[in-house]
């Protein structure tokens, strides 16, 4: 089922949770709604499901306006962050619930229910737990049961609200891989909400990056990571070095330092914020010349890449010092011969600049 969201706005009191959101989600994809907490991603998911009502706008499912359709009639499967399993029912009854509450004319016979539930439990690899109660399961098992329960009614779209949010790191990683595999098997259109960029980059076909009730960028994980469209996208995804300053010819003046930017379309004197990934940033020895001055704080060697953490020379902003991070190959590290406390300069050949709104 394709999902279209048209000009959705939603406020809670004075707080604007969603501000005129328009979104097209093609069928069959696994899509991540990514953003910091409070950005409206869960609200958007709940509006798509029908659990929340939008103040304005429309939700179109499979080409039909579903805005006034009841949750029951939308055929969405919803997986809750805290599982929301029925605590007084066994795992089997939890999964069978959606089939048992069907109107008599549509309800499959008991034998079919039994078969289907066991097939789903096998799918989530938990058939051996069918007689247990939710309280006897681990968090990861509960979430898989919740997923099986949602799939039992054969929804046209699967919506997952921070599905791994309440789990510890190891289980989370395992379930992530498992969700991806499940999606590749079933090809059911799925949307999941997460605030974990790593999760979104790893699992999703497409990421919708949200901030403060608006969409910042939509794209494949590669696009989101390599070509962030806005300064927020740059800052939110991955580790990044951030420089704020003013354009001066082919340089950005950051404090007393000059950072070459290589762009020609910038007017002198405009405020900009510049970003560079750690692997696109280089360290230059010596105190003079171009680049932003910094001091080597720590050299972290674990694995093939060495990460050099640097402390900015400038004044502390808002009470905290700026740190930079540069990734160096072993060869370069030897060639540079850095030592802790050494004064160096950093610059980047791939600097991305955005107008500074602050």
């Amino acid at each position, binding site marked *: 089922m394709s999902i279209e969201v048209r000009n959705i706005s939603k406020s809670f009191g004075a707080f604007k949770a969603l501000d005129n959101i328009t979104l097209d989600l093609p069928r069959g994809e696994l899509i991540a709604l990514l953003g910091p907490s409070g950005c409206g991603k869960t609200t958007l998911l709940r509006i798509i*499901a029908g*659990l929340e009502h939008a103040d304005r706008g429309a939700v179109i499912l499979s080409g039909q306006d579903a805005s006034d359709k009841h*949750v*029951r009639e939308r055929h*969405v*499967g*919803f997986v*809750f962050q*805290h599982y*929301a*399993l*029925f*605590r*007084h029912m066994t795992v089997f009854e939890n999964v069978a*619930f*959606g089939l048992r*509450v*069907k109107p008599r004319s549509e309800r499959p016979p008991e034998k079919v229910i039994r078969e289907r539930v066991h097939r789903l439990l096998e799918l989530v690899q938990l058939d051996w737990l069918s007689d247990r*109660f939710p*309280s*006897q*399961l*681990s*968090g990861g098992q509960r979430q898989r049961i*919740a997923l099986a*329960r*949602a799939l*039992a*009614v054969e929804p046209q779209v699967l919506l997952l609200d921070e599905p791994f949010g309440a789990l510890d790191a190891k289980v989370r990683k395992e379930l992530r891989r498992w969700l991806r595999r499940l999606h590749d098997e079933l090809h059911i259109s799925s949307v999941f909400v997460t605030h974990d960029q790593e999760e979104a980059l790893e699992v999703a076909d497409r990421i919708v990056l949200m901030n403060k009730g608006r969409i910042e960028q939509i794209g494949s994980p590669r696009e989101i990571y390599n070509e962030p469209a806005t300064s927020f996208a740059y800052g939110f995804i991955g580790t990044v070095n951030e420089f704020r300053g003013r354009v001066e010819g082919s340089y950005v003046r950051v404090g007393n330092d000059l950072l070459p930017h290589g762009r020609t379309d910038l007017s002198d004197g405009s405020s900009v914020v510049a970003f560079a990934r750690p692997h696109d940033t280089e360290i230059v020895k010596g105190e003079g010349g171009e680049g932003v001055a910094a001091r080597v704080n720590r050299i972290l060697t674990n694995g093939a890449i060495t990460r050099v953490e640097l402390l900015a020379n400038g004044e502390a902003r808002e009470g905290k010092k700026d740190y930079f991070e540069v990734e160096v190959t072993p060869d370069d590290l030897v060639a540079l011969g850095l030592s802790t406390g050494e004064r160096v300069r950093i610059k980047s050949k791939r600097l991305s600049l955005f107008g500074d709104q602050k």
Partner: protein
Amino acid sequence: MAGAAAHLAPHSGSATRFEANLATRDTAWVKVAVLGIGLTYFAVFLLLPLVAVFVEAFRKGWEAYLAALVEPDALSAIKLTLIAAAISVPLNIVFGVSAAWAIAKFDFPGKHLLITFIDLPFSVSPVVAGLIYVLIFGAQGWFGTWLSDNDIKVIFAVPGIVLATIFVTFPFVARELIPLMQAQGRDEEEAAITLGASGWQTFWRVTLPNVKWGLLYGVILCNARAMGEFGAVSVVSGHIRGETNTMPLHVEILYNEYQFAAAFAVASLLALLALVTLSIKTYIEWRAGLSTSEEKTL
């Protein structure tokens, strides 16, 4: 009146651990003194009166005891008490469940006002509660003339007693369920709806099973109060023997007429009811404790 969630919590083993630890153990005389005060207080103020009720009831022997209970006025009082409870308890279940459901699961204007007003019968003296109904339905009351014109009797009749009983037992079920339902949140109901359940199915299959112990707890407390209520019922009853006397009122009349054995015989029934209520209550607490501790073990 704390919520079920609070006082249905399972007892932990911390007391034994505390006692076994040399560093936290109290001296012997402190233990004896505290235990002594507690037990004496319990014996004098709780156990003694309870024993006295049964001793006095059987003072004139089994036959006199039974005779006092099967006497027509006593039977009529028992019947009226059962009727009042049989009407007020189901009504308060319906009200309590719907009020708790509305308060816990929905946001609507006037929600806080409703929560506050549910407690009103607890904070108002039962006598006042009775007087309210006299003022409204009594001969000199607001609807008095209309009621007597249509030959409907409320005050000094069974309807008045039922109304007064409903009023004083009003909060029991709702008060138990509201904190319980609030703690459980809306997640499971929302899950049920996304799975295609209707509102009615969601209620019967998800909401009600989740609160069943809290509900039962509220119901037996409600029932105990409905059968034992004196003040409010006394005001609206008129004390007509064999017609508008409930058991507590009947006890008072017998006592005032110096029929002590008979008075205590009927009173012993009420005491028995209290004991039964207590044991059911303990059982429910144990069961509810069992299900919450199950939830805690992962």
